[in-house]
């Protein structure tokens, strides 16, 4: 209790940002990757596979819920950029604002075509309708690029000079917004995250269907609903170690303090060990397995090259090494576990029916959870690893955070709202799945009012405001779309 009251404003602001981002990132993964998976299934559907068409219809309704929550949780983030970090926005808004503006275009195109796609069923010609997914996919890719341009710039700032004006305020001059976008960390971070959206969406969607299989539902819809996302996720999972490795290789020169924390390297040394597990206590690594040389080999490409150690940085400039180290290891560990599960499925599929293997299906459910662990741990690694800087070696978080007090009140409000919103989303999606199981009807009528007691033949003679079709069983207060 006293701990909460004593929570300092900076920590409250960081927790609020972390929670808002951590919530939104899961939904934005679906926003980026799910349309592609819907596209694959939908296309199969209009080529005559009835099961696929039904599945695409259901997925588009699921997407409607997820995209709505994603859109609003993304909006809050743009508020929080200013509410929580006015110091950064004031100094660097014109340096790094442009990719946000470009992302605005992506968001417009995405929102428009989501509206058209969701409401286009039975209204647009099938081929045109299918193709309305393409702008959503493209804007997802472009939007990811823009957001990662901003984040990577915070890790590898470029495109400006710093001056202090007469009043002692930090000012960015000689602004080159293009150079800021094309910073050194951009490409590896962008590709790593873009591929991650497919990994997360694929494994989570597959986990939902694996749960159904474990409950005895092995129908073609479950097989298709599992296999398409799982295939995307498998390709993504196989790519991630290589992409992540490229991203990590630049750290030794660009962000050495982050690398030192990730590797739990106390001193700068060549032939640096890879430390699996372990905790840093009073400047010493306790526990953990040390494999000599592998740290240098992985991070620098050669055992002869040194991995920077935490001792190169004053205590005030060091990130919290244990958090970064464990987050990094959690990401890597779950990444390899997911690869194992994915390969198990495809190997099994060549020999027998993989959906018969309960252990495999349980593992596939686990892969859904692991994908979330990897996603969140990856972001913790890069964000906490950048501490104490908000803009690496340029601006500290304490100079960027708002001077307003009472941030923990808004943090508490966000915790309550997001917990309720998350629970409601899960409940609504669960009830949609239940209704689909109970009926062959894909449409889910909205209960705007009590069902009209009027029998159909009477309804035909009575003027009815909502339903021009008098033979519908439930005409007054339900709507389908």
């Amino acid at each position, binding site marked *: 209790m006293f701990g909460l009251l004593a929570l300092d404003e900076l920590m409250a602001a960081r927790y609020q940002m972390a929670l808002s981002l951590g919530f939104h990132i899961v939904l934005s993964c679906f926003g980026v990757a799910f349309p592609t998976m819907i596209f694959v299934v939908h296309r199969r559907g209009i080529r005559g596979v009835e099961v696929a068409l039904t599945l695409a219809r259901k997925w588009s309704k699921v997407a409607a819920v997820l995209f709505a929550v994603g859109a609003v949780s993304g909006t809050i983030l743009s508020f929080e950029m200013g509410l929580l970090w006015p110091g950064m926005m004031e100094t660097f*808004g014109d340096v790094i604002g*442009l990719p946000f503006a470009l992302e605005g*275009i992506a968001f417009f195109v995405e929102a428009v075509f989501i509206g058209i796609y*969701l409401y*286009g069923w039975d209204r647009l010609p099938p081929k045109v309708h299918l193709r309305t997914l393409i702008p959503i996919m493209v804007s997802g890719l472009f939007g990811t690029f823009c957001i990662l341009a901003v984040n990577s710039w915070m890790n590898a700032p470029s495109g400006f000079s710093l001056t202090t004006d007469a009043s002692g305020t930090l000012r960015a001059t000689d602004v080159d917004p293009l150079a800021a976008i094309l910073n050194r960390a951009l490409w590896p971070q962008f590709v790593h995250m873009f591929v991650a959206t497919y990994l997360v969406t694929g494994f989570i969607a597959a986990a939902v269907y694996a749960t159904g299989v474990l409950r005895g539902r092995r129908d073609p819809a479950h097989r298709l609903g599992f296999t398409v996302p799982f295939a995307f996720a498998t390709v993504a999972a196989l790519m991630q170690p290589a992409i992540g490795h490229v991203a990590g290789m630049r750290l030794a020169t660009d962000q050495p303090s982050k690398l030192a924390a990730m590797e739990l390297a106390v001193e700068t040394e060549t032939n640096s060990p890879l430390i699996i597990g372990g905790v840093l206590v009073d400047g010493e690594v306790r526990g953990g397995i040390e494999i000599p040389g592998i740290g240098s080999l992985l991070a620098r490409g050669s055992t002869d090259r040194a991995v920077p150690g935490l001792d190169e940085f004053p205590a005030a400039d060091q990130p919290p090494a244990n958090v970064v180290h464990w987050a990094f290891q959690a990401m890597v560990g779950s990444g390899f576990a997911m690869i194992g599960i994915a390969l198990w499925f495809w190997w099994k599929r060549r020999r027998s029916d993989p959906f018969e293997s309960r252990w495999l299906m349980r593992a596939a459910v686990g892969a859904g959870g692991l994908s979330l662990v990897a996603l969140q741990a990856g972001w913790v690694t890069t964000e906490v690893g950048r501490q104490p800087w908000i803009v690496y070696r340029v601006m500290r978080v304490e100079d960027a955070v708002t001077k307003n007090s009472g941030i923990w009140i808004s943090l508490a409000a966000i915790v309550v709202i997001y917990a309720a919103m998350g629970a409601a989303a899960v409940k609504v999606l669960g009830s949609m799945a239940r209704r689909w199981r109970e009926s062959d009807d894909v449409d889910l009528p909205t209960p705007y009012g009590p069902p009209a007691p009027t029998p159909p033949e009477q309804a035909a003679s009575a003027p009815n405001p909502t339903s021009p079709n008098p033979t519908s069983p439930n005409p007054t207060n339900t709507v389908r779309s």
Partner: protein
Amino acid sequence: MNLSDVVAVLLFVGVVAYAVFGGADFGSGVWDLLAGGDEAGGALRAQIDRSIGPVWEANHVWLIYILVFTWTAFPTAFSALMSTLFVPWLLAGFGIVLRGATFAFRKFSATLGEARLYGVLFASSSLITPFFLGMIAGAVASGRVPAEGYGNRWTSWTGPTSWLGGTLAVLTCTFLAGTFLAADFARAGHDDMAATMGRRALVAGAVTGAVALAAVLVLEFDAESLASGLHSRGAALIAISAVAGLFSLWRLRAGRWARARVGAVVAVAAIVIGWGVGQYPDLLVDELTIADAAGARSTMVGLIIVFGLAAVTAVPALLWLYVLVNRPDWAPVDDST
């Protein structure tokens, strides 16, 4: 007109678009709140869902556009706005989250009880968000946001102009949405519902007009700089807004919903543009001019290019969406189909 003025105009295009499209969107939520019990309100709620379902996310992006243009083009002003008006921004933000999420949840509710809960949250947050955004506008218009930021956390957004701004925002949203919904009902072939909605919109429009008149008096003593701008440069726009508003009421009386809608849109757009013109060249009234708030020149050029890109990508997409939802065959697909 220098570069920063051009960018300020582009930013303000977003403000006007958000006031009109976002306004009609929020206002639909207000009508949802006023629709009555389950039995009486079902038909109206169903129409609201059909009307804003396909467009609400796109309408909403205008707010992001405004925020992003502000922080990119005028970073110090953005920082001042956010640090001073922390509370109303936060409350408006919570409203946005609750509104969008519960709107989607209601659509897929399994039971009437759930639909009722999400409906109440959706409808009340449709009231909260424009109210606080209006209060923020009032704080800017009355010169209560200091250029260096961190103005008084409470009094800077609770002056007379802010209360007026909040009230007027909610009312204009309600009026706009009333004309949109009446036209939507008529297009769907429900002339009786259109007539009911039209009568309500007429009342909303009359109240909005009356409050707007009262606003003139409040601005005279509480927002003198803006008032003097409105006397000179903004006078024509205020006149246009008044004429368009009266035209809209006249057409509502005659049952010409589509024309009433055009009148309402022009009235709202003109008054918002009048606000902008009235406070020019200030970005934060009495505190910071557009030119002084401007960020780096290269970024300003970049923003103009981004606007150009949006004009050839997002704008045609938006137009296609609005054309589609106004087509008769985009009326709801009913049970038998």
